[in-house]
């Protein structure tokens, strides 16, 4: 009895420690975005000045919008392409399929620094150069394998008889896909889309290589700002992003009950 209680308390302590480890830095940062002192000085003095000055910081705001736009477009393109690729890999057997599937994984493991350098050289070589288009192309390339892996995993749980049943009832390939297969893999497609969004929105290394001074994304802009001298505006913009992205995540989890599917 006594040991069980001790173990129970140890378990709780561990959870608290884990959550603290994950969230404490974020909470401190969020708190500091409301602190008057730019040098993290205590006592805490409530202010919304940093949010006011953030609203004046056109460069940071432009970078934020760039990031959001690129992340959304990356998500759309890589989710559609990736899901189609997963379906093709699931349905058809063709020469070199195994090789192709094996080649999908290395890009996830190759350091972004190397991928970024390679992309920069390649984009200059083919005349795309740097800028938002280059960043977008780079992000799609980075996000695609994640989408394919997640959607393919979901497809592994799909019963192929369902497609056969639909065909036996007279459905053509398009109707089979839209009405039977797609509804089943939707949670996988959403999860893949979230991955794609995260890969793009968090992306620093590749974006840094491919951006030009005027046209850049939020992580690159934050990095540049910190190098010039830290301002709590960074805390403010980060806090806003954290709140928005956590809300998005919670909403998705609520609607698609990951893992809890019947």
């Amino acid at each position, binding site marked *: 009895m006594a040991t069980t209680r001790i173990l129970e308390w140890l378990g709780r302590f561990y959870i608290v420690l884990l959550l603290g480890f994950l969230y404490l830095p974020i909470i401190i940062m969020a708190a500091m975005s409301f602190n008057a002192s730019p040098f993290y000085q205590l006592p805490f003095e409530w202010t919304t000045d940093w949010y006011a000055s953030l609203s004046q910081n056109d460069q940071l705001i432009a970078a934020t919008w760039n990031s959001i736009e690129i992340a959304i477009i990356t998500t759309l393109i890589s989710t559609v392409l990736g899901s189609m690729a997963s379906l093709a890999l699931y349905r058809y057997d063709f020469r070199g399929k195994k090789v192709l599937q094996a080649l999908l994984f290395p890009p996830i493991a190759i350091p972004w620094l190397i991928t970024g350098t390679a992309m920069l050289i390649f984009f200059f070589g083919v005349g795309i150069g740097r800028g938002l288009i280059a960043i977008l192309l780079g992000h799609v390339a980075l996000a695609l394998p994640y989408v394919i892996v997640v959607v393919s995993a979901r497809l592994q749980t799909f019963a192929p008889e369902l497609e056969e049943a639909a065909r036996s*009832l007279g459905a053509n390939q398009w109707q089979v896909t839209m009405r039977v297969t797609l509804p089943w893999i939707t949670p996988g497609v959403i999860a893949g889309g979230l991955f794609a969004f995260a890969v793009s929105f968090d992306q620093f290394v590749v974006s840094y290589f491919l951006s030009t001074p005027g046209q850049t994304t939020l992580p690159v802009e934050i990095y540049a700002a910190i190098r010039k001298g830290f301002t709590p505006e960074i805390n403010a913009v980060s806090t806003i992003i954290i709140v928005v992205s956590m809300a998005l995540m919670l909403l998705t989890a609520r609607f698609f009950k990951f893992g809890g599917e019947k």
Partner: protein
Amino acid sequence: MAGVQVANVSRSFGAHKALDNVSIDFADGGFYALLGPSGSGKTTLLRQIAGFDFPDAGRIAIGGESVERVPVEKRRIGMVFQNYALFPNMSVADNVAFGLSVRGEPKVTIAAEVQRALDLVQLGKLGGRKPHQLSGGQRQRVALARAIVTKPRVLLLDEPLGALDKALRVDMQIELKRIQREIGITTIFVTHDQEEALTMSDRIGILRDGRLVQEGPPEEIYDRPQSEFAATFLGDANIFRGDATGSGIKLPDGTTIAASTGAAVPAGAKASCAVRPERIRISPGAAKPDPANANTLTGQVSKRIFAGNNSTYFVDRDGQTLKVIVQNTGAERLAEGQPVVLSWSPDSTVLIAA
């Protein structure tokens, strides 16, 4: 509604011949069972008829129209899968409506047809449920309703009762037969369960290693099997092997067994005889042989299994174990180890060419 003709169909997967020159005629409105052990090619044959897979050679016709290169979605067939394959994201009614809906039928027609089909399988009130809220038997009925609502030319069933427990399976056999009679659809039914094949079908095709072994009405196959395999796969049989005498066979020990049914085997050739366990009379060793049962052997009871309405005796005779089934008529039961006389009529003995 239409008959199905399969003519000289072969299909190989790599070096494996899944179907080897199979020809079989399924008449319009009949109920056929394709029976065979796993790997016999029965499911492959069904998938050729459905159009999921195309034969390497041969012809398949539905209603007189060649279909061997027509894909499944254009064949107008109905299929029930072993695990039902209901669409999990759709309600029961939407599952049944699927075939009509992809065809673009008007909503009013669809609703009426779906209701009729659900009523036919006695699930009229469950249209709003999701498949996971149904029992196995109910899912089976939904799958059937979904397959027949489109008025297919032929209904194909792939071991449809395999996932149900015994009692439910018997109910569904009766139900399936009733529905098939009511709509009069040509039905081809794959099973490895010989009892199911015997009780449900008008004709049975027995497959083995990709070949059609025998085809005909259940009574004919049971009473006159043309091979040892057919004799032992459909029902139980005692097999005796020896040399043909013209009117039966002679066993290696000199005993003759008279057979008046089965193949004509020239005297001297290798042949075997099959006798069903319930056709053999068993009596205590001292009893006089019965003249009507001209075939007589002696042996010793090695084991008795009592099953309520009948008992199965295992009788050792010269190294061979024979099986005899005796109805429970209240007569004296024989003890294990007791010497016995087995006798049966030549009419119950089927001669099979080796």
